[in-house]
């Protein structure tokens, strides 16, 4: 039986108290299974980053439940003491900009996280080389991020996110800094990764032209999350 993915039940987040309380997320529930690519969409200020930070174990929810695979990690409080270890072992992150460590070369950027996880060096090395080969960067192992194009750096960031074999990848507008051609290429790649690596990917995007690559759409409406099917053609969702 396949494990992995993410399940969220009745998640709430409120900033402030009393009259000043702002209820950003109000009972969000959704599921993204391994092998699925989901798009998280909403107008600016609707709570995309807040939701992403909560399911990324960076921000404390006010209440609700979060499951990573078969493991419940949040039930009105974090059930794991060290959320940073949780992030390191179970979640991969991809950002708007690539945010690679500028003083590490491509190979070291990908090796850093599994080595911090105390994984054996030969296995880490093999996995990093395999991922970078898979993403077409086998010629760039020792290049510095400053020597690569935006698209190449974003692929290194994807390799880094995959290096620890996470159950879920959270991609925060990974195509925002790319032109439309490269954006399509990156999202196609994310879809391919989701299918081949059997990982659940949640991608925040403002670009409705990319939604057709996704398996489902998570749309934040009035603090709740509606799960919608992907469009067959380009249409306005946001």
């Amino acid at each position, binding site marked *: 039986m396949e494990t992995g993915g993410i399940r969220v039940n009745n998640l709430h987040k409120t900033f402030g108290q009393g009259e000043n309380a702002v209820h950003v997320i109000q009972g969000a529930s959704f599921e993204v299974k391994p092998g699925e690519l989901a798009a998280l969409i909403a107008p600016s200020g609707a709570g995309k980053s807040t939701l992403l930070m909560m399911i990324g174990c960076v*921000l404390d929810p006010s209440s609700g439940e979060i499951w990573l695979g078969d493991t419940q990690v949040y039930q009105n409080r974090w059930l794991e003491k060290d959320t*940073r270890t949780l992030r*390191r072992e179970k*979640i991969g992150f991809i950002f*708007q900009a690539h945010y690679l*460590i500028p*003083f*590490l070369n491509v190979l070291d950027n990908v090796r850093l996280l599994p080595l911090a996880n105390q994984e054996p060096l030969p296995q880490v090395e093999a996995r990093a080389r395999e991922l970078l080969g898979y993403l077409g960067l086998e010629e760039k192992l020792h290049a510095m991020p400053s020597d690569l194009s935006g698209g190449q750096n974003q692929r290194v960031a994807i390799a880094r996110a995959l290096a620890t074999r996470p159950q879920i990848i959270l991609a925060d507008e990974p195509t*925002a800094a790319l032109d439309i051609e490269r954006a399509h290429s990156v999202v196609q790649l994310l879809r391919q990764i989701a299918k081949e690596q059997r990982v659940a990917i949640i991608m925040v995007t403002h670009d409705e032209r990319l939604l057709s690559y996704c398996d489902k759409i998570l749309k934040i409406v009035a603090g709740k999350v509606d799960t919608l099917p992907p469009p067959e053609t380009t249409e306005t969702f946001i």
Partner: protein
Amino acid sequence: MIHLAYQDIRHTLSKFLVTAMGVGMLLGIVLIMIGVYRGMVDDARILLNDIQADLWIVQQDTLGPFAESSRLHQDTQDTLKSLDGIDKAAALTFQNLQLYNRQQQAIRVLAVGYDPAGDFQPVSPERLIQGRALRAQHYEMVVTDKTGFQLGEQIALGRDTYSVVGVTRGTVSSSGDPLIYISLKDAQNVQFSYSNPRIRSDRARGIGGQQTQLVNTVVATLRPGYTPVAVASEIETWKHFTTYTQSEQATILSRNVIERSSKQIGLFTAILVLVSGIIIGLIIYTMTLEKIKEISIMKLIGIPNRLVIKMIVQETLLLGAIAFVFGNFFAHLIYSQFPKRVVLLWNDSLALFSVILAASFLASLVGVYKVMKADPATAIGG
């Protein structure tokens, strides 16, 4: 594991080295200041060590020639020689003078007057680099190389002209003035003889003949079996003199003569060390701030704090270590250009290294604080 500090430094090597060089120059100045202090203490003891007396007999109730005006009759040396326990005794004079070189530039010196045929020879053979010590009772001079005078050069002093017969190295007074050596008779003439108009004026006022058989101190060594304290006590029972042992004279020099100057330099050095620590702290703070986005990312993706903190601390300590090496190099490169003696000791360098390591470690805590406070959430949402 990937060595983050090494990779970061390698990535910005030139910037790191330039920063370390800047801090190093500051540390070099600190080392020089410590060296000036050491030089001052050493200078104060050169004459004392070269003379190697057991006792210094000076005018009653004075601190002696290095701290106060002291005058004794020259024949005190003969009286002392007859005292039980005294082996050798000699009269000495000390006087600040201004000489002029060929370019008519003024050179301030301390003139030591001694009897070339006497029991004490203050010109240390180890310090004599050219020529010889005094032999004649008149018109010969031994100079320190820092005066710029050459062997055989003729120098006008008082009413007479002197020949340089010897050159020493590293001989200075407690105030850093170069030493010259002249015979006791010449020194007495220079110090105690009046000019002809003054003599005529004194005669017209009924003042008697001038007294030139005066000296500033008499130094003595002891026979075996006699202790300086016991003999000094014996001399003081005469009530006419005050007597100091060699160590007491050294204490007078370090406490009374150079204490304020040395304290001033010591305080200045302490402030410099403090400023260096603050500057290192600011540099580390800035270096950490420059990386705060990367640090937020590292924290977000799950890199443990200890790895990031290790990187900051290692970079700081390495910065301190490289700055220390460069500071030593810089100090040794320039110290000879200073007009006063600068004594650079490895012990002082190592002590400073410990202080800088401690300061660097404390400074790294500033960076560590920034790491701990860095919010991983800032990496999300742009």
